[in-house]
């Protein structure tokens, strides 16, 4: 106990030294590179040393106490919980793909930036403080206590699994891709290397280990995200503040778009970057923003992070810190997109490629990423100047234009170091950051699912008499089982499925949000209402997604299935309300229980948690 408090008191010092150590490590690798150490060795050092640090934290944080395992002993200060939440939240998609989405969609891509930040206001106001006061270990715990029984718990676990599994598979794929590129191994082997890292972090110490690893991972990922674009901004504009300077770059992009966007110009067919609603209709844009926001406030692996703070007050503040740390990355992402677009529109497109010599003069990074199939010119992967020249000749293209140049969304962030002509060590840094982002999110998701199985299904529904030691053994076995299942599903799943991680947001939003919010805000809400609402909300959302995706159902009102909760959410609210009104009101005790949740003072309410702590 004493020892742990000393750890909490020295957090600033510990993570300060850690950050300094990490920066020193990057500088050390930069020197090695200058001395002629091959890139491949530098890649190995990046992967294994960062993995070793995360694993080390995981092992140091091992625990044999139930409340440490499930909620990190409820001792995590607001700022650090904020950092851990930010790492938990920002996935491989945020780190790698978001800037590319903004590159491709321009203004319309900002729906993701808005949706994935604004949701935290809902978390702060409607969810985090009340669930923290209740003192749950898992989200289904709350549903069971509020809606009298294991049926509500079971529905909660099913919805949790539906939204977390696809999400986890997306992370594992990301880990595999990055590890395979850095280590030069097949993707499927990379998935298992990453999986080993994830398991070492979470298995011995549960939530406690994951918390302190996620803080470490946040530091790596934010440094890795900011450094390349800061250097690029200094290079292109003279000021190392990309978030401010890209306003000027946007203006220059608009000038290029106007000048060369006319019929016959090399940017013909381009969608002006800052002009809204060219890819999404306004209805789709705002529906997506709403679904992502409400989904954020309902995803169990995010909500459970706020169970770890020492008090309700800290839980509220910690949401603010979480959003601040997320904001640092999200307000930088559009600048990556702008700098990349300016480089491509100004320096790549419009080039004469009518001879082989001229094709050879295209920037080197195009062939570097063309070789791994991420850059396509004239309809073929840009593997070499010969391939590009021949394909363009065959199509009669002599000036490289917008229509004949495609870049994969993932490439924008990854290629920035090469676009800026920075040394390989920066590319390695970016890869280490992407790895940290994917691992930290995978940790959180895996824990959310395994805890739902071990705590909600095993302990609460199958064997309520299980001893603490037995519960922890079961928790660890299930953690490994879920991890292996997820890895196996990732390997056999068709590629298309993984890009639909955004569906998880709609399923969580429609399935869980009404039950969680009404459970606190509306005393009259009862078990039949909430259960019917959860089933109806998740059901309508799934029906819409599967119908439009697999069975060619016509979209309702032209809404994309990525925003399916726009139908599921109102249905869930209405069904909950109507069914609750038609059935008897909750008992006097239950209404008093809700009143207790609403005030911060007093013991946490979950009986089991009180016994354990």
């Amino acid at each position: 106990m004493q020892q742990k408090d000393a750890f909490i008191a020295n957090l600033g010092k510990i993570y300060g030294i850690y950050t300094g150590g990490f920066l020193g490590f990057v500088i050390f690798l930069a020197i090695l590179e200058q001395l002629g150490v091959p890139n491949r060795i530098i890649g190995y050092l990046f992967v294994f040393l960062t993995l070793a640090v995360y694993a080390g934290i995981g092992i140091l944080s091992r625990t044999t106490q139930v409340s440490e395992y499930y909620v990190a002993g409820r001792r995590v200060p607001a700022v650090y919980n904020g950092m851990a939440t930010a790492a938990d939240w920002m996935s491989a998609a945020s780190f790698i793909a978001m800037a590319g989405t903004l590159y491709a969609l321009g203004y319309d891509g900002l729906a993701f930036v808005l949706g994935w930040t604004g949701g935290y206001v809902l978390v702060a106001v409607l969810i985090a403080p009340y669930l923290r006061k209740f003192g749950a270990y898992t989200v289904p715990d709350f549903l069971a206590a509020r809606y009298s029984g294991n049926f509500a718990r079971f529905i909660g676990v099913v919805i949790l699994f539906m939204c977390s599994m696809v999400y986890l598979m997306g992370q594992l794929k990301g880990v595999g891709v990055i590890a395979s590129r850095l280590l030069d191994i097949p993707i499927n082997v990379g998935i298992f290397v990453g999986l080993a890292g994830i398991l070492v972090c979470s298995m011995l110490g549960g939530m406690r280990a994951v918390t302190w690893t996620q803080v470490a991972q946040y530091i790596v990922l934010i440094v890795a995200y900011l450094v390349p674009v800061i250097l690029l901004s200094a290079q292109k504009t003279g000021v190392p503040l990309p978030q401010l300077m890209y306003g000027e770059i946007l203006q220059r992009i608009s000038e290029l778009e106007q000048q060369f966007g006319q019929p016959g110009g090399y940017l013909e067919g381009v969608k002006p970057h800052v002009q809204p609603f060219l890819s999404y209709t306004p209805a789709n844009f705002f529906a997506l923003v709403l679904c992502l926001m409400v989904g954020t406030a309902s995803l169990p692996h995010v909500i459970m992070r706020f169970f770890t703070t020492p008090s309700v007050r800290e839980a509220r503040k910690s949401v603010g810190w979480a959003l601040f740390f997320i904001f640092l990355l999200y307000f930088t992402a559009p600048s990556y997109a702008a700098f990349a677009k300016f480089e491509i529109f100004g320096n790549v497109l419009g080039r004469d490629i009518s001879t082989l010599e001229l094709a050879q003069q295209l920037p080197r990074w195009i062939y570097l990423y063309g070789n791994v199939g991420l850059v396509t010119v004239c309809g073929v992967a840009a593997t070499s100047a010969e391939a590009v020249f021949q394909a363009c000749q065959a199509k009669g293209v002599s000036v490289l234009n917008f229509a004949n140049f495609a870049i994969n969304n993932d490439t924008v962030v990854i290629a920035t170091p090469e676009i800026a002509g920075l040394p390989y060590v920066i590319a390695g840094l970016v890869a280490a950051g992407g790895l940290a982002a994917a691992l930290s999110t995978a940790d959180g998701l895996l824990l959310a699912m395994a805890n739902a199985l071990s705590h909600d299904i095993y302990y609460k529904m199958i064997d309520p008499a299980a001893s603490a030691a037995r519960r922890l053994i079961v928790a660890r076995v299930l953690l490994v089982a879920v991890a292996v299942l997820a890895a196996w599903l990732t390997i056999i799943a068709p590629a298309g499925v993984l890009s639909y991680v955004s569906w998880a947001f709609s399923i969580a939003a429609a399935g869980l949000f009404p039950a969680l919010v009404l459970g606190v805000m509306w005393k009259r809400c009862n078990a039949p209402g909430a259960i019917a609402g959860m089933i109806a909300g998740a059901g309508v959302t799934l029906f819409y997604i599967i119908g439009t995706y697999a069975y060619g159902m016509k979209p309702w009102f032209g809404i994309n299935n990525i925003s399916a909760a726009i139908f599921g959410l109102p249905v869930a609210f209405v069904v909950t309300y109507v069914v609750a009104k038609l059935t008897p009101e909750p008992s006097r005790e239950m209404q008093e229980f809700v009143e207790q949740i609403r005030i911060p003072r007093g013991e946490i309410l979950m009986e089991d948690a009180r016994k354990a702590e």
Partner: protein
Amino acid sequence: MTSPGQLEEYWGKTRNLMVTTLVLWFVFSFVVHFFVNVLNSITFLGFPLGFYMAAQGSLIVFVVLIFWYAHRQNRIDEEYGVAED
């Protein structure tokens, strides 16, 4: 502990703060962006303002809004003696 009447008053104030916060959230999540085309004709720090609001402005508002809410709610808790020790 506080009397039931006071508790009701406490929850009333909490709810008012909640509604205020959610109204601001709604304005900066949706309403501002309805007018993106109008705002884009204004230049702010070199950005078209409509684009800026979606890329940075609203995000800054969200961060500040949460800290402001946490601070105000804490004051209400203390006023009614229901804050944690």
